[in-house]
């Protein structure tokens, strides 16, 4: 299997579900397709739903439906996953590509802990040395058994785990009359314990032989918690303090904006008019910036108008009012309301489920909120005049 930065694509997907963080995926219901090209690549599908994740390798080209899709070559994918390549830079330069709802891809780092490549050079002895601390007395009950490990090749050796009275001890050498004996090469044993080699495959291929009491042998995996390899470390730990600042704010609206917002409550859009040049300003500004004089006269404009520009927003930016990521795409329109002319435009949102049908020059009208509080969103959005 092709390795990049000492890791294979398989390593990352195989461990993905064990790295799932339900707290980072509350209310998430998505399917993510991964198309990884090049040596060691393939197609995977991730389903996150009801606080659980399922990662599966696909045998054919058909992803079926997906919410978002990520494509990359194997080296880029692994490099980003292990933190050796900057994900944002790879995305920007086009080496990592996204399709569909991009906000899903941006949420992935919240849903999974980062893949940590295991420390290089882990030996069978390293793993067995942790057997005593990984032993689970609650699962062993009153078992009284001896388990032998006969591991051949480089890093091999012979060990016996003695399990009795809810305790486990490890001895070098093989005792006589073992309940179960594991026979494998040391490197296959390490791969089995790191999850790189499937036990059923290993048994089927004769690479792992179990001798003795098979009923006990089947219990063995439950008697020990999973071996978690120490993380590969690169330099000293840099302590970074994480903080979230959340503050309730309130802003006085002032004389001009206050009057405008009161108008919205009454389903009226008010502009103020410059006494010198006649220019209307929506929303009203105290001073006409062109004439530098006070503009006190209010006139009602709209509520219908014409789209002069649509901004289709694909970037899932946070809503500054809630901190939540906005749903994309959405449309922001520059609007010339009836009664306004030239540059007297304003901006607001377009109805998102009709987004594809809007075009420049369309006549639109505001959709008013049922409960209006004197706020920009007393107009929910603009929709087409039919």
């Amino acid at each position: 299997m092709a390795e990049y930065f000492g890791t294979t694509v398989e390593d990352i997907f195989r461990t993905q579900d064990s790295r799932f963080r339900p707290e980072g995926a509350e209310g998430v219901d998505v399917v993510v397709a991964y198309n990884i090209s090049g040596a060691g690549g393939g197609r995977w599908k991730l389903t996150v739903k009801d606080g659980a994740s399922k990662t599966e390798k696909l045998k054919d080209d058909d992803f079926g439906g997906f919410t978002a899709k990520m494509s990359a070559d194997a080296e880029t994918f692994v490099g980003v996953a292990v933190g050796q390549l900057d994900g944002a830079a790879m995305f920007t330069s086009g080496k990592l590509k996204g399709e569909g709802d991009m906000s899903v891809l941006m949420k992935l780092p919240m849903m999974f802990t980062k893949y940590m490549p295991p420390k290089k050079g882990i030996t069978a002895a390293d793993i067995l040395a942790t057997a005593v601390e990984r032993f689970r007395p609650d699962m062993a009950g009153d078992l009284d058994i001896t388990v032998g490990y006969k591991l051949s090749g480089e890093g091999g050796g012979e060990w016996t785990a003695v399990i009795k009275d809810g305790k486990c001890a490890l001895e070098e050498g093989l005792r006589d009359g073992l309940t179960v004996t594991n026979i494998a090469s040391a490197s296959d044993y390490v791969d089995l314990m790191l999850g790189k080699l499937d036990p059923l495959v290993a048994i089927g291929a004769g690479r792992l032989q179990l001798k003795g009491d098979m009923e006990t042998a089947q219990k063995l995996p439950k008697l020990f918690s999973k071996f978690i390899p120490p993380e590969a470390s690169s330099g000293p730990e840099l302590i970074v303090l994480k903080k979230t600042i959340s503050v309730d704010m309130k802003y006085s609206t002032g004389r001009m904006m206050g009057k405008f917002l009161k108008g919205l409550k009454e389903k009226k859009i008010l502009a103020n008019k410059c006494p010198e040049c006649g220019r209307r300003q929506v929303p009203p500004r105290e001073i006409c910036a062109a004439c530098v004089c006070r503009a006190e006269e209010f006139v009602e404009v709209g509520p219908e108008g014409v789209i002069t520009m649509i901004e289709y927003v694909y970037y899932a930016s946070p809503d500054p009012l809630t901190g939540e990521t906005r749903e994309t795409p959405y449309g922001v329109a520059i609007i010339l309301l009836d009664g306004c002319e030239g540059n007297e435009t304003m901006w607001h949102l377009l109805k998102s489920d009709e987004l594809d049908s809007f075009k420049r020059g369309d006549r639109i009208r505001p959709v008013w909120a049922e409960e209006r509080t004197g706020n920009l969103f007393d107009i929910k959005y603009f929709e087409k005049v039919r």
Partner: protein
Amino acid sequence: MAANKKNRNVAIIGIGQTQYSSHREDVNQPEMINEAVKLALQDANLTKDDIDCFMHGNMELFEMVHQPDLWHVLGTGAYGCSEFRLTTGGTTGITLVCAADNLVASGMYDIVLAVGFEKLQEGHTTGGITNMADPLWGRMLQTGALTGTCAADVINEFGEDRARRAAMKHRIIMDQHASRNPNSHRSFGLEMDQLEDLMENSPRLVGDLRLIHMCSQSDGACALIFACEKKAKELSDKPVWIRDHVTTHREETLWMYPLDLSQKEEPTHRKAPRELFERNGIDKPVEYFDVFEMYDPSSWWGMDWIREFFLLEGDEHIRMVENEDIRIEGKMPICPSGGVVSANPIGATAMVRVAEAALQIRGDAGGHQVPGDVNHALASGFGGTLWTILVMLEKELDWE
């Protein structure tokens, strides 16, 4: 507009920049600032005791520290000395330059050190920028600094294919410039044969603004040292003179589209050069200047604004990009540093434009030095909500 009323001349005599990067967890804010300050002092062969006044600038909304100058005092070196703090959004760095120029020209201080910085990875850039808009209206609608209006304008005027190609060509040239600037944050190694692939496949952000077009979010700091004419001549053998600068802002043009230029509203990137060149008697800036370090927040803006900043007409600016005149070795080199699309530590970014333009005049830009004499340099700054600042730098004190 009053101009050229300087009490005395001012020169840049020290330049320091950190490496720009996507993450600097290895240093805290004052330590990172100190890297740039130390380099600027070394460059000017001065110590902190030679500085009469310090200036500090960033956008506090990004790191959410509201008196950062107090925490940073050991990094800036301002303890026991005068210090001012400025924050004007994207223009912060170049506003520091204008203010330092004014402080020294006024006679108040002989030598001023200004440092601009940002550690964008410590906060949330788009959130910070969005919260800069007025809270009654704009904040609810704005998407940080992202907008597709400029792309729409250019496409409208020059057609989809020509406009998209030119913007991407601009982007690739900037990437190739960045590859020659060791301080640059990003250089992807883009080649011209990727142009069509990027045009199609780079993820869209807003309208025709794609991810590859947009500036980065960087960590880094830049420091400059300013001196009055007398001190500059004593202390430096390569002073770079600040001839003039102009600051314009007009927020309402943000939501005016398409902007009818026959009306009263004038975009700031048009007003600033018109005023500056008029009062300095420069008819053909594209001939006058030897290099232009532009604050290009995206390749669309970077390409489009060439026209306004150089008082060009029609498609002259597009042709400059198509003919690759904007390359370091081209007829009118623009952003030899790689520009803002290649490194953007926001509070430093606009100062980096001046720093890089000054390095070009000194002939000290190394691998991205413009060939031949650089006597006249232009630097611009841009920020929300639609501020434009221009600074003119000169090699010789010979203008009237």
